[in-house]
């Protein structure tokens, strides 16, 4: 290798081992199709050895490539064993194809960057008047919407008259009177349900139960009844105070 072929050991400069190989190949020949892969392998291995000798830290992928190239080199040098796959010539060709592709893209990138670029070489108008789109609302409504809206307004405005449906309830007063009368002087515990009017069912029974419960609490507060419940939601028992 002559001095001209020597590449500076600038490790930061390479975008990976393929990049280094491409640079070495370019130094060898411009036409990547005509390079000597064997020579390229030698150059790469030399490069890596020198880096090691200088105790430069090489990224792992450079070493992996070096190992692979060393294998390729020995395979290329040894007499070919047709039983061994893959064919080293084939591996060499693949490497060459990869270098050609990377080289092509590198050139393409350079040509792209060298074009007249907008904002660097060519410029758009400095003060364009600008285009404006003025949006006009086209309001949409249909007849049904208008009529229904009027119906809603009219319904909202009719005099409000709340008619409460006639329903049977037991007032708190009635319940207090009833529970107080029934508990009388009873000494045994009786469940609260026993204090409800006979035949009460449905909404009336619910009302009577609620009112009787409140009545029992009120009577207990007045000391006119005693309450007992084993636990939450367990039956509630009443009796006259002892």
């Amino acid at each position, binding site marked *: 290798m002559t001095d001209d072929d020597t590449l500076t050991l600038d490790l930061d400069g390479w975008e990976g081992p393929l990049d280094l190989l491409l640079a070495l190949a370019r130094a060898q020949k411009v036409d990547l199709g005509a390079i000597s892969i064997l020579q390229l392998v030698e150059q790469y291995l030399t490069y890596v050895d020198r880096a090691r000798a200088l105790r430069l830290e090489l990224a792992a992928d450079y070493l992996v490539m070096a190992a692979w190239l060393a294998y390729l080199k020995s395979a290329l040098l040894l007499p070919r064993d047709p039983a061994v796959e893959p064919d080293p010539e084939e591996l060499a060709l693949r490497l060459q194809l990869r270098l050609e592709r990377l080289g092509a893209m590198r050139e393409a990138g350079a040509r792209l960057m060298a074009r007249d670029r907008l904002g660097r070489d060519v*410029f*758009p*108008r*400095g*003060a364009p*008047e*600008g*285009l*404006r*789109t*003025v*949006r*006009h*609302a*086209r*309001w*949409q*409504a*249909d*007849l049904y*919407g*208008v*009529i*229904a*809206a*009027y*119906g*809603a*307004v*009219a*319904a*909202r*405005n*009719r*005099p409000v*008259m*709340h*008619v409460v*449906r006639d*329903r049977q309830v037991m007032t708190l007063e009635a319940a207090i009177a009833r529970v107080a009368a029934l508990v009388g002087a009873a000494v045994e515990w009786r469940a609260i349900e026993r204090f409800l009017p006979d035949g009460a069912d449905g*909404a009336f029974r619910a009302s009577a139960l609620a009112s009787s419960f409140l009545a029992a609490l009120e009577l207990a507060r007045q000391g006119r009844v005693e309450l007992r419940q084993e636990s939450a939601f367990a039956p509630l028992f009443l009796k006259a105070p002892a």
Partner: protein
Amino acid sequence: MTPPDDLVRAVEAVLFASAEPLGVDAIRAHVGDGDVRRALATLATDYAGRGVNVVERGGRWHVQTAGDLAHLLRRERDEPRKLSRAGIETLAIIAYHEPVTRAEIEAIRGVQTARGTLDVLMEAGWIRPGARREVPGRPLTWVTTPAFLTHFGLAGRRDLPGIDDLRAAGLLDPVDLAFDAASGEDASGEDGEADDE
């Protein structure tokens, strides 16, 4: 176009790329020596009658759209927009009660009418101001327009269904029914009850 010479091309590019009008000296700072004034005069002639012109304003030059084409830079576009509920209600009240003042509209709707609501209806071309009401304050009244009838396919305001029609159509549904339905009492029961007027 006649091919311009180098200086004319340079001045043309500089004027075009500049963010502001340029005086002769500023142009010269870019293009170097040469008869910049002559180049500007050439450009003014070249661009006369085109879609953009090279013009001088107070000693400074710039490129601008030809005055008669300025309208092209503004594009008008119709966008369908749905009328808001307030808009529809207000329109309906005007249609049923016209001529009607804003205060009356508000009384009927039970809420204040936002400023924009009447504007929108006017923009839509469905209402217009009518005569002033001859009461204290002489408030403006609002009426519908012929365009309103056209848009909604009505021969006249008489075609609008009356209150009775609305009720028959179920558009006056009493809200109270909701309570009974919720309380689960007799699903079958009457409910023909409770009405006014």
